[in-house]
């Protein structure tokens, strides 16, 4: 299949691996930001194939993992109201709030529906004018434009029974928080290809200047990731710290200007709380005042739950790349995808879930 097979080609991957092996002379700690990239690394076993001096640590780029439980509690509270239809992506429905998840709310009678696009949620709202249709939206700069578009269209159509319950996060402020942290170990970042496709590259160039750390934009197939890793290793061995784009078939320097326009029109940057990482200034998006009539947080009288108690699971260390899922004593025994103790075990893109799904056979610590 075109655009897939060539990036999963075993011979090409082997050639890149040999080249990486030739280049690498020192130990390096690299972080892939995006959960989709983590998933590919584990699924194809790239970390097993790389030289042992290259350590891959997994970043905070799994949207479900960094979504605060409080927004799920608000979604569940809304879903349990008689006149509300709660619509979201399948992944989100099984993320626990502080008490239950949306699947359980559905099992108890709530009207909860799964869609693949916020525009499908709009359609549900149009077809069910007697229901209040709330779309639960989380995610990075990748999912935000489509959610912005849904609100924009609802505004244009005067659709008054559609609402957005949103918790959007931005990648560059998170990288800044990680790189500036005194316990940071990461020496090179693989930037998230899909995010850069939308917002372009300039923010990442700024980060390279600010922290003198190489950043290479990477894709999501094994060959994409190996190219990004080769790019980082080459720079590090040569003592360089530059920005590079290895995902040129999708990422342009300026990004998707139309998507950026709709993002700016509908959302504004705000402080944001990340599950596991805490509050990061100017790292999220909220609906502008002009769209308040579609903002579930403003329209509905939602009890704002108390701040989350600090988690005893090590997800914060994992999201910062300080520890691996297998460093956790609960991993695979008391913490599994069916009974997750922490967010990275919940989402299929989460680092713990990826280790559990693909790798526990090689781990002796499993029950």
């Amino acid at each position: 299949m075109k655009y897939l097979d060539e990036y999963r080609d075993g011979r090409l991957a082997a050639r890149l691996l040999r080249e990486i092996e030739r280049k690498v002379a020192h130990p390096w700690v690299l972080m892939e930001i995006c959960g989709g990239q983590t998933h590919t690394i584990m699924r194809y076993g790239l970390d097993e194939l790389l030289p042992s001096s290259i350590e891959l640590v997994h970043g905070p780029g799994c949207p479900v993992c960094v979504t605060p439980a409080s927004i799920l509690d608000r979604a569940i509270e809304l879903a349990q109201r008689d006149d509300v239809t709660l619509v979201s992506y399948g992944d989100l429905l099984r993320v626990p709030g502080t008490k239950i998840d949306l699947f359980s709310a559905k099992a108890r009678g709530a009207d909860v529906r799964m869609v693949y696009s916020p525009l499908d949620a709009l359609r549900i709202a149009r077809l069910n004018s007697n229901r209040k249709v709330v779309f639960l939206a989380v995610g990075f700069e990748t999912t935000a434009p489509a959610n912005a578009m849904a609100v924009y269209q609802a505004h244009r159509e005067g659709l008054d029974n559609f609402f957005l319950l949103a918790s959007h996060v931005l990648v560059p402020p998170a990288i800044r928080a990680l790189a500036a942290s005194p316990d940071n170990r990461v020496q090179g970042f693989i930037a998230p290809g899909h995010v850069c496709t939308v917002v372009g590259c300039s923010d990442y160039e700024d980060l390279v200047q600010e922290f003198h750390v190489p950043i290479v934009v990477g894709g999501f197939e094994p060959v994409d990731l190996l190219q990004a890793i080769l790019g980082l290793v080459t720079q590090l061995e040569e003592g360089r710290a530059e920005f590079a784009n290895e995902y040129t078939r999708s990422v342009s320097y300026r990004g998707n200007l139309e998507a950026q326009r709709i993002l700016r029109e509908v959302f504004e940057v705000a402080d944001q709380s990340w599950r596991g990482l805490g509050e990061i200034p100017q790292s999220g998006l909220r609906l502008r005042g002009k769209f308040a009539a579609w903002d579930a947080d403003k329209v509905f009288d939602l009890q704002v739950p108390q701040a989350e108690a600090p988690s005893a699971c090590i997800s914060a260390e994992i999201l910062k790349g300080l520890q691996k899922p297998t460093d956790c004593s609960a991993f695979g025994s008391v913490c599994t995808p069916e009974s997750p103790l922490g967010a990275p075990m919940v989402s299929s893109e989460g680092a713990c879930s990826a280790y559990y799904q693909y790798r526990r056979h090689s781990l002796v610590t499993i029950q």
Partner: protein
Amino acid sequence: MNPLTCPLPVFDTETILMGHGGGGRLSADLFRNIFLPAFGNSILGRADDQALVEIGGARLAFTTDSFVVKPLFFRGGDIGSLAVHGTVNDLAVGGATPLFLSAAFILEEGFPLESLRRIVSSMREAAQRASVQIVTGDTKVVEKGSCDGMFINTAGIGIVDTNLHLSADQARPGDVVLLSGPIGDHGIAILAEREGLSFETDIVSDTAPLHSLVADLLAAGATIRCMRDPTRGGVASSCNEIAQTSGVGIQLEEKAIPLRDEVRGACELLGLDPLYIANEGKLLAICAPEDAERLLDAMQRHPLGRCASRIGKVTSENSGLLTMRTALGATRIVDMLANDPLPRIC
């Protein structure tokens, strides 16, 4: 640090979730924790797709299955043909010659008779094709809103050769895993017709009776350990069950698994793994290594097995686990399905 104090709760297990019907881990939990303790007997305990009972010297296979597929009509079939094929296949993969079926209908008040006629006619054709008779049945009607159009339950009996011993506990290290054709067609065909999923495809459900393919395989004189039709939960769930029941590892070869480009494309777009997608006319067979070529040849000579291939092997390592050698040469786990990506597929 005590990880148990983490504020995230454990999965809510006191309510039935859609995942309990998904054929994955939650379904297995329900069987193990509720049904097996209540009904426990050695026949049920084998947990095969069909029960094997002896009556007056004859070995009978006996099975039942309910069908709640949404929508009722889909590309390549409908709930009626599916209900016949599903039960015929559960009998066939136990090595039985399917003979008689029952059909029970739960109909929703207001359901159009014309649709019922179409479905019943499709059942008749499917039964003829599978050489079985529908010999008993039942009809119940529930108030509007109490079921989604119609549900069907079928049960079936078939006769098994006295020398045949196929069971999920028979796989041994060194055995070979064969698959009769490309995976995921049924699940993706249903998915394409679902509300809320806007994509178009020409993929047709593979729903088909496997009895004659099975008969050809049994006639090939090969040592077959076990057969499955990988429906809900897909090839991954069937292989996981066999690995766990036999106490062996199973290793698949990613490159060897037959998969249509259209199905692969849909799975890539929707973030699904075709190994977990339902099939309704595919056969998974585990056989002794020396007989693999002969069995594969017999599969490929049957119209339903033309694209059959050898997809993996049984190992002594990784007992109870299904693993896959990726296209790049590394090994990964293919886990039991934890939660159904798409309910009401059959």
